[in-house]
């Protein structure tokens, strides 16, 4: 029950949520709601693990996972962008599809044994910083560090670059973006693909770093859905998504560790003596997601913030805009 260790492990497991949430932020900023994150993460986790077994190189596993998940996302892109179908139902279908394909192709993988994982290392100077050093920069997976880089990068890209401006325009007012010569359809396909790749990266982070292995649908255990919830809480902002992701990662870790010691805060640890209470602990991440959604939604109403205006609606050329 060392808080430093809990936070350190929490940052690692929060990285899974972070990648998925960043990907979803990008897709939703372009106006496409993709509820298939869970399915894309599953297929990413499965292909990362199986390719790493086959090749012995986890880097190839990660790259293939990103590509395969990106490919899967294009099914959703085609259905909602070109065929203009309902984004909610299509996203649900994508989750079922991704889970189903992962189960079929991942058959027997759970008995495959261990593979070489993504490397862990400490950052020389930064790891010496008191408290923050051990939490963020000591013996973390290389994927965790990639997460640190990706968050400010995504923020900068969305808010300070020209392509980012186009991305926001496409999500807020596609008819105007179209009039400016931005190819709305191509942009949406691209960001859905990017979102899929990041969800696949999140899946690979599970199977090759945080909780190595393939445990069928339990591999993700609803983390893809938590990531979708976090995006709403984050108000489509990468930094808020990062804070939420790491907090949820730490919570997951705390739930595991709190059942260990016999004495907690000087009292008999009820969770140790009555392991059945653990079932209530397991509810916490999901209950917190709901609470976080309530907070996020209330804040959105108060500050008059909102989702990207065109989120969830297909763009049909020549139709009058909203």
């Amino acid at each position, binding site marked *: 029950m060392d808080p430093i260790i809990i936070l350190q492990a929490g940052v690692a497991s929060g990285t899974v949520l972070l990648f998925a949430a960043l990907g979803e932020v990008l897709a939703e900023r372009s106006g496409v709601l993709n*509820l298939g994150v869970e*399915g894309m993460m599953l297929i990413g986790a499965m292909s990362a693990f199986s390719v790493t077994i086959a090749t012995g190189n986890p880097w190839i596993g990660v790259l293939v996972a990103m590509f395969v998940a990106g490919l899967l996302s294009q*099914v959703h892109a*085609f*259905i909602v962008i070109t*065929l*203009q*179908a*309902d984004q*909610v*139902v*299509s996203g*649900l*279908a*994508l*989750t*079922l*599809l*991704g*889970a*189903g*394909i*992962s*189960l*079929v*192709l*991942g*058959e*027997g993988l759970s008995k495959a044994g261990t593979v070489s994982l993504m490397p862990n290392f400490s950052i020389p100077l930064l790891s010496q910083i008191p408290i923050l050093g051990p939490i963020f920069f000591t013996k973390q997976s290389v994927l965790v560090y990639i997460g640190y880089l990706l968050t400010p990068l995504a923020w900068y890209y969305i808010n300070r670059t020209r392509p980012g401006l186009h991305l926001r325009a496409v999500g807020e007012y596609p008819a105007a973006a179209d009039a400016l010569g931005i190819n709305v359809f191509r942009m949406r396909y691209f960001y859905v693909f990017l979102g899929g790749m990041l969800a696949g990266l999140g899946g690979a982070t599970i199977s090759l770093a945080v909780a190595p292995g393939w445990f*069928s649908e339990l591999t993700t*255990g*609803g983390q893809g*859905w*938590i990531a*979708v*919830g976090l995006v*709403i809480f984050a108000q489509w902002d990468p930094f808020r998504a990062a804070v939420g992701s790491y907090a949820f990662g730490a919570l997951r870790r705390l739930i595991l560790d709190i059942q260990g010691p016999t004495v907690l805060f000087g009292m008999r640890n009820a969770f140790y003596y*009555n392991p*059945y209470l653990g*079932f*209530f602990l*397991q*509810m916490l991440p*999901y*209950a917190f*997601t*709901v609470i976080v*959604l*309530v907070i996020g*939604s*209330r804040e*959105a*109403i108060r500050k008059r913030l909102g989702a990207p205006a065109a989120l969830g609606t297909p763009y049909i050329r020549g139709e009058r805009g909203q």
Partner: protein
Amino acid sequence: MAESTLSKQRMPWRIKIEPRLDEPPAWLPAAVSVGAIILALILGGVLIAFAGGNPFASYAHIARASFGDLGVLSDTIVKATPIILTALACSIAFRMKLWNIGAEGQFIMGAWGASAVVLAPIVPAESSRWLFIPVMIMAGMAMGAVWGFIPGYLKAKFNVNEIISTLMLNYIAISWVNFWVFAVWTEGGFQMSPKFPQAAWLPRLSEYAKSVPLFRGLTTHAGLLLGIAAAIVLWFIVYRSRWGYEIRLIGDNPNAARYAGINITRNTIWVMMLSGALAGLGGMSEVGGVVHRLQTAPIAAGYGFTGIIVAWLAKLNPLVIILVSVLFGALILAGREIQPSGVPKMIQGIILVCLIASDFLLRYRIRIVRGEEA
């Protein structure tokens, strides 16, 4: 210019897509759905072959193991019964564009509520079937309704996205039932409760084998009647009642509904509760008619998610849901023995994808025109 003439020379005709201005012909939606399912089965077959299986053997097995004789047909209907109820639950919520994907959790809570009647016990153990079954039905529906009320209330009052909240409640329901099964009602440390007394079982066809010999060994239980009754009631609510009219209006055009003075907040909560109650009834039917005890969460076995697909395939029509549920019951029943084990789930996913994609054909007309016409 040169390029376009070139392509014209190569292609004497081209495909033209234009929006449909009129209503599509009546036969088209059904034809498109059947086409989508056939396409899905072909795609699924390719993936099965890719994973090292034999698609023809898999599909032949599904057909034989689900409709082959009266016994397996009866088992297929047993599998279809919970799907009917979860699909009805999804259909009424989807009708109002409320994306309740928590039928799975509401189903589990319904199963828990019905079990509590027997295990708590709320009704004395020596009671008759006439007391047990109605109380179990009420308890199951009530717990399902509670599990629908929470996301409904949060949606109505705080605009909380119901997709996420219903999904999160699924996981919470699983942990909740696990706690009771492991810690309170466990039978000798196993992850299941003691078996219910016979009076708490929904009657089965095989019970009447003495008077009708044909029924010997048939597992179909009275849950099917609950499902069919619920479908008929729901059909009347949706198509023949004022409330159903309000629900359809809100779903089709919330602004018009608001101007018409319809209370969307209240309807959101009521529809989510009705949806949850239907899924909860499914859970009751499963513990009362099939397993006769409370088990850990796989009791729902994805029925909640299958319900989404079935509702969509049936175009949210309660009566069509009964038929489609039987097909999916067959898929699930036969799928248990198929290797690789994920096949039924994958085929369901592919079917849903093809279905959604095929809706395009209902909104657009595809014509093949000669080059000069364009």
